[in-house]
């Protein structure tokens, strides 16, 4: 399959702060590509550069054959964007929001009606098309935004944390839609997330941290790098070194728990219980997850760290704005 996105040595600096520190990757046409990383890792910055909303400080990014820095208008016509914060006009109806989008993206008039039905059906909002967006729930707004992003049949749909703050039911529904549109329209989906379970839905995942890509592969291959099952042991701090020396494994510590990998974990449990009798508070045996991959690659759990100062400030502003709505 041809590459629809090709990024080479992309760098973005905000003053002294380097948000994106030279990344390379390619996305194939028709795949669901996920950017996985904690807040402040550089995910949104990368999306903004690819979507022509920010200019990179160095390197090159090509989308559908166009250089994003040289031909922003051509790139914009090929992409759909769903932002972290909503960007609907709440004083207009769902239908009017779609109409507005169709006009800006030059969707032919005779195509608009069928396209609108198509995308609204996809997100189950057909019966609400005459309602003001103001009356929609958060999940409905997000679905409408996804529908809007698809209206002009973009070649790439960017979803920046598309399920942030949504309930699990809506998250599942949105994922169903995303896969459906990939199958029905052939749209390439480029998404960011910090939910591990969501990243499992992607064809390829790039794990990004501190502005650098730590690994790119399919979810299955990434998990295979773990080798065996993950054992999580709760106990006293002295276990860290003893586990390392006794079983000759790499141990990661998060809180008061120790993570390491073992082939056939279930059979290992009686052995460790015998070896460390009385010192172990709890034991879990887990199938390897992307969480473990992330932990192994970066030495930290994705949730435990603080975002950058800029990021938390931005979140505060968002909360404050939401509060006023």
């Amino acid at each position: 399959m041809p590459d629809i996105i090709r990024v080479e040595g992309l760098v973005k600096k905000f003053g002294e702060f380097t948000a994106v520190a030279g990344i390379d990757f390619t996305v194939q046409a028709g795949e669901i590509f996920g950017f996985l990383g904690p807040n402040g890792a550089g995910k949104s910055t990368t999306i903004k550069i690819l979507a022509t909303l920010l200019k990179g400080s160095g390197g090159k990014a090509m989308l559908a054959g166009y250089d994003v820095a040289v031909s922003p208008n051509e790139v914009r016509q090929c992409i759909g964007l769903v932002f972290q914060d909503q960007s609907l006009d709440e004083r207009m109806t769902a239908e009017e929001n779609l109409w507005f989008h169709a006009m800006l993206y030059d969707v032919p008039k005779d195509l608009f009606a069928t396209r609108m039905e198509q995308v609204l059906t996809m997100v189950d909002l057909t019966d609400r098309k005459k309602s003001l967006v103001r009356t929609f729930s958060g999940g409905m707004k997000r679905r409408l935004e996804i529908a809007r992003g698809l209206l002009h049949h973009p070649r790439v749909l960017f979803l920046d944390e598309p399920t942030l703050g949504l309930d699990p039911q809506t998250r599942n529904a949105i994922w169903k839609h995303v896969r459906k549109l990939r199958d029905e329209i052939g749209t390439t989906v480029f998404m960011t997330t910090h939910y591990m379970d969501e990243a499992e839905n992607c064809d390829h995942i790039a794990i990004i941290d501190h502005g650098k890509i730590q690994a790119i592969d399919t979810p299955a291959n990434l998990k295979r790098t773990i080798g065996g099952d993950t054992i999580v042991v709760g106990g006293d701090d002295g276990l860290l070194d003893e586990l390392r020396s006794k079983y000759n494994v790499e141990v990661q510590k998060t809180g008061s728990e120790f993570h390491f990998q073992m082939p056939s974990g279930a059979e290992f449990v009686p052995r460790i219980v015998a070896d460390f009798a009385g010192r172990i508070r709890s034991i879990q045996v887990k199938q390897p997850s992307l969480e473990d991959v992330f932990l192994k690659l970066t030495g930290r759990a994705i949730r435990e760290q603080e975002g950058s100062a800029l990021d938390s400030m931005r979140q505060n502003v968002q909360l404050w704005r939401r509060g006023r709505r």
Partner: protein
Amino acid sequence: MRGLKVIYTIWLREFITFMREKFRIIAMIGQPLLYLLILGKGITAGMRLNGAENVDYISFMYPGIIGMSILFTSMFSAISIIWDKEFGFLKEVLVAPVPRWGVALGKSLGGATIAMFQSVILICMAPLAGISLSVVVVIQMLLLSFLISFAITSFFVAVASRMESMQSFQVVMNFVVMPIYFLSGAMFPMSSAPGWMKTLMALNPLTYGVDAFRNVIFSRTLVAVPGGPAVPLLDMARAGGLVHWGLSFDLGVMTLSAAALAAAGAWAFSRAA
């Protein structure tokens, strides 16, 4: 072609959302009524205009109130850019593959259309100010409202493009909008203002708009003079220094200002975000 489509789309959206804002429409009716009925009537009862004693202050003030209403209406139309920024909708516009100047122009035309509605409301209030109108005068007033509002909306599009949040709005209100209003000849005639103020007023495009309104609005009204035949209001206003320039001069200045401000608005908006 793409540019025209954008202009039309933005214009229509302005209009659709305006029609849904009931409070804005109530304010559009209420504010001028307040000024005319309380301020206008109150001042008329207590004061005479120097050099044009037979002209009621409320008749003099009526075109000024139209100018003021257009100023506020236009400003609110343009300032909605900041709301769009805060509510996120502006992003949808900024990432679209459309020329930014088209968006700015659509916004200005939308503001100008809404200002015409404002004028219709004010035209209905003409009898309160003792003004007689004709069909031609009404049409002239509407067209003039459109032109003036287009210029002012464009100006505030440029201002709003530079503003980050609604917080700065108070500053704009106090240090931009109010001076434009006070220095437009809406409340007092330019001829009786001190010299330095005259200079400032002559630099304010709205001054020419208000003057053009007086030229148009006074043209059909006769004023009773004690012990003589009724005199056309426009002649009396000219003689008393209440109308400063001829209509074509006012229109010329307004048109040039509108063109320059539209260019400034489009330029500033193109550089925003």
